[in-house]
């Protein structure tokens, strides 16, 4: 039985010196076979397992994670959630995700610390203003909140930007999605894991999937570091490692893996209460609850499976930050890291069948799949349970690369990657 978290349980455990808290999820030995095996215990894998059990009653499910859950991109991202996309297909999908996020702390009985502090996208040129008017209006047509901002509006929201007459990147205006914001990344992974576990899902950490046993009718078993596990269907949710597993299955993907890095500064007093994105500076920044500035930028410029990030890109990101906020120049950086992200040509995810019967794909999130975790899990669970696309994800299959029906969201990722 899952221990419910509440004020009462907190008080009760406090009286017992916090020694009797139960484990949030079990660490079971794998069973010989499962109806569904999810490879990858990031946000997408864990959310998928939860919705399989919750929405579809499919409970004989295991998630295999080669490290610890949330240790991939889910625990490395800059935690921005938003649904400010351009095209109707993406707008519908990402707004469903944001709506699920809005109810997620209650749904999972786990505080994901969603903070809808808004995201301000800056316009530094006449062209930026025109492009952002189109963008913000497209959002409204799609039923998503957006407001255009004048220079004075931006100045009220983000007083620390460089408003000097000779600023390198003059602030001419911008737009905001008020419902955008941040959420605690680990909590999203842990919350889904705990709730999925309570519904019977086995979460197997420190267990790598190394290959598959394929029969004439499709996938039969997964090879893991703990032995061969029989399986009905397999869902791959391994982000930057999708091509590696695809290779063991005998196909290739329209995916390229790159390092994407981020960094945080030393903690300082509250001075930034929204997320700020500047496509021209190539960076975005927010302030965490601990007071650190959380800074992200563009991809490293060549293929990589190394979770390090290289110096020229880090330097460029910092330069962009200082250009926007000269007063940040004295701050020290506390940590820097990278995740290996799964980039596709049109910046739209791949959610669909693979060429191997019984194996399904959840990848292509690139630099922006944290915000998509609830909807990605929701739609992937639907696909795995019913072997058909969820209506919110019908355009996201691999076949779009052959038909040419790409959903080119490159612009809406905000940063030119």
């Amino acid at each position: 039985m899952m221990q419910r978290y509440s004020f009462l349980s907190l008080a009760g455990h406090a009286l017992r010196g916090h020694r009797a808290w139960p484990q949030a999820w079990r660490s079971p030995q794998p069973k010989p076979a499962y109806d569904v095996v999810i490879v990858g215990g990031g946000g997408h894998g864990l959310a998928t397992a939860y919705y399989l059990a919750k929405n579809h009653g499919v409970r004989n499910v295991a998630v295999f994670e080669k490290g610890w859950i949330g240790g991939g991109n889910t625990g490395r991202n800059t935690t921005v959630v938003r649904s400010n996309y351009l095209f109707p297909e993406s707008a519908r999908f990402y707004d469903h995700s944001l709506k699920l996020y809005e109810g997620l702390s209650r749904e999972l009985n786990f505080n994901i610390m969603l903070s809808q502090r808004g995201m301000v996208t800056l316009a530094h040129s006449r062209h930026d203003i025109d492009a952002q008017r189109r963008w913000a209006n497209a959002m409204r047509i799609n039923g998503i909140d957006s407001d255009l901002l004048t220079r004075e509006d931006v100045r009220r929201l983000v007083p620390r930007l460089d408003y000097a007459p000779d600023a390198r990147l003059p602030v001419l205006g911008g737009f905001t999605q008020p419902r955008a914001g941040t959420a605690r990344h680990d909590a999203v992974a842990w919350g889904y894991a705990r709730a999925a576990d309570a519904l019977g899902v086995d979460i197997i950490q420190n267990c790598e999937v190394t290959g598959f046993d394929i029969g004439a009718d499709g996938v039969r078993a997964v090879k893991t570091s703990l032995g061969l596990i029989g399986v009905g269907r397999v869902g791959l949710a391994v982000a930057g490692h999708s091509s590696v597993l695809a290779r063991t299955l005998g196909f290739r993907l329209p995916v390229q893996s790159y390092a994407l890095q981020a960094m945080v500064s030393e903690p300082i007093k509250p001075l930034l209460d929204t997320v700020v994105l500047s496509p021209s500076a190539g960076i975005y920044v927010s302030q965490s609850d601990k007071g650190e500035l959380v800074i992200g930028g563009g991809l490293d410029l060549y293929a990589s499976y190394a979770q390090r990030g290289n110096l020229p890109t880090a330097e460029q990101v910092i330069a962009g930050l200082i250009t926007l906020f000269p007063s940040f120049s004295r701050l020290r950086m506390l940590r820097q890291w990278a995740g290996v992200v799964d980039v596709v040509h049109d910046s739209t995810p791949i959610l669909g069948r693979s060429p191997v019967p019984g194996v399904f794909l959840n990848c292509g999130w690139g630099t922006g799949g944290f915000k998509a975790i609830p909807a990605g899990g929701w739609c992937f669970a639907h696909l795995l349970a019913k072997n058909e696309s969820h209506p919110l994800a019908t355009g996201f299959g691999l076949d779009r690369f052959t038909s040419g029906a790409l959903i080119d969201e490159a612009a809406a990722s905000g940063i030119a990657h």
Partner: protein
Amino acid sequence: MLSLTCPHCGPRDETEFSCGGESHIERPGVEASDETWADYLFVRDNPRGVTFERWHHRFGCGAWFNVARDTVSHEIKTVYPMGAPRPTTP
């Protein structure tokens, strides 16, 4: 920071170069099927390990050349000319 050796200019910092992505991809003929065309445009090996890619000495002599590089350690195994066959690397 990578140090790449341009065949013409010698070793230079990575910031002088830009990476042109996977090498040895041949453009199919005009009669190609949609599948072949999609393969050509979008599908990549994307290996974890040694990859073969094109680099451009963009802020230098302007030459294009091939590089075999490890995508985990980023170690550069060999540099070889455009048009040369894929080398066998350890």
